[in-house]
């Protein structure tokens, strides 16, 4: 870092934070550095704040067999220091700027972010570029962090029967694809992770040609380009990085059904997940239709098809819902959930749910409900401009899930182009129980019927 830049960091900070309410976050540029690092810049000049994110195209579905949890474990280890920034000093430095920082891991990506005053972007880049290639790991640090992660697994999964069953259901959903492995990892495999695993993973995947930089806030594309070239530009790419070709699913021919009983269950739940296609570059129409299908079937707690049939017309459920998120590298899932009213047996509730689905496939779509969803999706694009962090995440997630900036920008129009016929065709294809996992979570001692 040249001395002048250092000085600027210290002396240009007495800027008032004004809410000038000018351009909102709808100006997006993108370019790629010579070493392969992709960069997206989202301008929002309403406040002198910036979100700086580095997304790596590696997640839990890219882990070597038998080493589940290493992607998430590594996310924690990225805070353990380099020769120039000691353990814990990364977060301390961000905090000393009044900023916040954190990281998250999914099946398709691992991402690190900081939110700081816009004039501190250079420092964030200095530190993020440093830990992309210069991390130092000791056995002691790895061992202590392994305990933290086992405690995290305990808190998130092992103490929650619903989370445990959903882990089992996902493992049953994917016969061959690594999406069946939990992001945090299986406990026995986390317990065996060590420094050598971490080091190998780091050297392969933490490189500029495997990363996407997203900078959102009070910045200009030229300014970000100059800083990115100065800080990330000198980093060496990983040569011969293999394309992300994961094992694919064979035809799913047999429905799978799971029942888990646990004394800690207060409220029985049925979940049903169907294998479903994801958004693909230049080909998002099917995913857009499934997005509508989820909204129509269970997106609205009052007017959706399931809510109206099972909570209003018939008294079967206390809660129903449908979920689909098509932003994934490989085939995803389309989910239904139902919490029965007391006294309604799970078999009865599930049969009622299936009858509603069958009726929907026969009757088709209420045109007014369809029109309302279109209106809401259009309005969401206006509301989304108020949340620059959300926009940054939208791009980072898409670009690490096989999509392009053009796909992200086309998505609202693809959604608006969906017709009721598209939705019914997608529904007929996806709502196939041979490709589904149905899971019952029941109270211990309850008779599973």
């Amino acid at each position, binding site marked *: 870092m040249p001395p002048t830049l250092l000085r600027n960091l210290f002396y240009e900070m007495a800027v008032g934070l004004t809410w000038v309410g000018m351009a909102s976050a709808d100006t997006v540029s993108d370019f790629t550095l010579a070493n392969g690092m992709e960069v997206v810049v989202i301008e929002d000049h309403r406040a002198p704040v910036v979100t700086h994110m580095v997304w790596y195209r590696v997640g839990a579905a890219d882990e070597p067999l038998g080493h589940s949890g290493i992607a998430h474990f590594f996310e924690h280890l990225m805070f353990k220091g380099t020769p120039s920034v000691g353990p814990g000093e990364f977060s301390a430095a961000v905090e000393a700027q009044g900023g*916040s920082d954190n990281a998250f891991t999914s099946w398709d990506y691992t991402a690190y972010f900081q939110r700081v005053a816009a004039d501190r972007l250079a420092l964030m880049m200095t530190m993020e570029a440093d830990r992309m290639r210069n991390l130092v790991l000791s056995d002691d640090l790895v061992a202590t962090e392994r305990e933290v992660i086992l405690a995290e697994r305990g808190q998130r999964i092992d103490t929650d029967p619903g989370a445990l069953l959903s882990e089992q259901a996902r493992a049953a959903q994917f016969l061959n694809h690594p999406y069946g492995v939990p992001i945090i990892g299986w406990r026995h495999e986390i317990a065996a992770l060590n420094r050598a695993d971490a080091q190998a993973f780091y050297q392969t995947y933490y490189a500029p040609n495997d990363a996407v930089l997203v900078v959102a806030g009070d910045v200009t594309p030229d300014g970000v380009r100059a800083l990115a070239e100065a800080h990330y530009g000198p980093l060496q790419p990983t040569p011969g990085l293999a394309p992300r070709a994961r094992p694919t699913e064979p035809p799913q021919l047999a429905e799978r059904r799971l029942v888990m009983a646990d004394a800690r269950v207060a*409220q029985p739940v049925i979940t049903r997940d169907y294998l479903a296609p994801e958004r693909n570059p230049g080909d998002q129409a099917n995913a857009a239709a499934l997005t509508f299908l989820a909204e129509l079937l269970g997106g609205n707690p009052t007017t959706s098809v399931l809510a109206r049939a099972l909570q209003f017309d018939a008294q079967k459920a206390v809660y129903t819902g449908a979920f689909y998120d098509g932003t994934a590298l490989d085939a995803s899932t389309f989910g239904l959930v139902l919490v029965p009213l007391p006294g309604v047996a799970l078999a009865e509730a599930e049969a009622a749910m299936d009858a509603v689905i069958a009726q929907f496939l026969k009757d088709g779509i209420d045109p007014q409900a369809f029109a309302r969803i279109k209106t809401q999706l259009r309005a969401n694009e206006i509301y989304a401009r108020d949340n620059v962090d959300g926009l940054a995440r939208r791009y980072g997630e898409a670009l690490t899930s096989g999509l392009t900036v053009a796909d992200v920008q086309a998505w609202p129009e693809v959604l608006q182009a969906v017709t009721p016929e598209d939705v019914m065709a997608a529904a007929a294809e996806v709502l196939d129980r041979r490709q589904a996992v149905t899971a019952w979570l029941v109270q211990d001692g309850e008779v599973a019927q």
Partner: protein
Amino acid sequence: MMIRLVLALIFLALPLRAEVAIEQVTSPGGITAWLVEDHGIPFTALEIRFRGGTSLDAPGRRGAVNLMAGLIEEGAAGLDAQGFAAARDALAAEYRFGASQDSVSVSARFLTENRDAAVDLLRSALITPRFDADAVERVRGQVLSNIRSNAKDPSALAGLAFDAAAFGSHPYGSSGDGTEASVAGLSRDDVVAAHHGALARDRLYVAAVGDISPAELGAALDHLLGDLPATGAALPGRADYGLTPGVVVQDFPTPQSVVLFGHQGITRDDPDFFAAYLLNEILGGGRFSARLMTELREKRGLTYGVSTFLVPMDQAELVMGQFAADNDKVAQATLLVRESWAALARDGVTAEELAAAKTYATGSYPLRFDGNGPIARILVGMQIQHLPIDYAATRNARINAVTLADIKRVAARLLQPEALHFTVVGQPVGLVSGN
């Protein structure tokens, strides 16, 4: 080396200041609101609070305000629940209603093109909700489902046990959701009474941010809120503090225990509040470098997370903390909390810790003002806490005015290691109820 230099010198940084232009608007009908006018995006975020919340529940009617808040959008004026939801969605408006122990909240956002219709529809929910019999039963079922789930959730159980031990028969001593028995016993009349008692103009706070002028806001507020009753139900009195020092274990079969701990706290208007705020930040605030996070997580891997917080409520004050840890590690983690508490009470903090906490607190404050919705929530929160309209501009100066001596004095006054109460839900090894 260069980076180390940066880290060392960064404390010289001057923080940003929050200079959001807040205007006080008084409607023709006399309703006041704080407004940040911003025409950048064609929508408005509106935040409304009614002081009182679930603490207004009449004796034996626990859960009435919560049930009312859950029902307010389930049919109004000429629309049943289905009709209301369809009308709201056709406008692409969003309304959220919530009940906490000190307030009922209404959050709305609506596009400029649909503003009048969206305000009119929201008005019908606030002024003329129907509380249809079928809606009451449906939402009652949802509330009962929550109550049953919480009865098997260690975090919720810990909260219930801690509150009951702290505040007994005061509303703060029980869940605002009510119990299975109390909610089963609520009638439509109870819901109507809760509505009249909780949503009144004598306890109203309003903030708006976005694409709306002062005159437009004033007219909208008169239409939206002008026909609410002038006065509502009496607020509860002060809550007597009843926590006993020591550990209380509630057996629950789970591999990790949830621990809540704390003792009496400090009021929001106490002259030492900012010193206490920084003290808490250093002890167990939001940063990875907080003392408890360092001792429990970074050094020993005992927990995924530990935090402490000041809890200034309307009728009582606490300083509290929480963590979860494997059953065989809870005893050690609890001991470390006690030791950290005692060390801070005895020795105060270092100059470096105070400087880092100030830099973080002052630097992070303006970063919170990052959108119409978040700003509206901050502004309504300031009003309900009786903070002045220039608070956002002066708050960092108050933080910076806190000295090491202030912290030492407040640490000795606020932190009482011998008074610490621990509620533990789980099957901790080597930890039993008692001192």
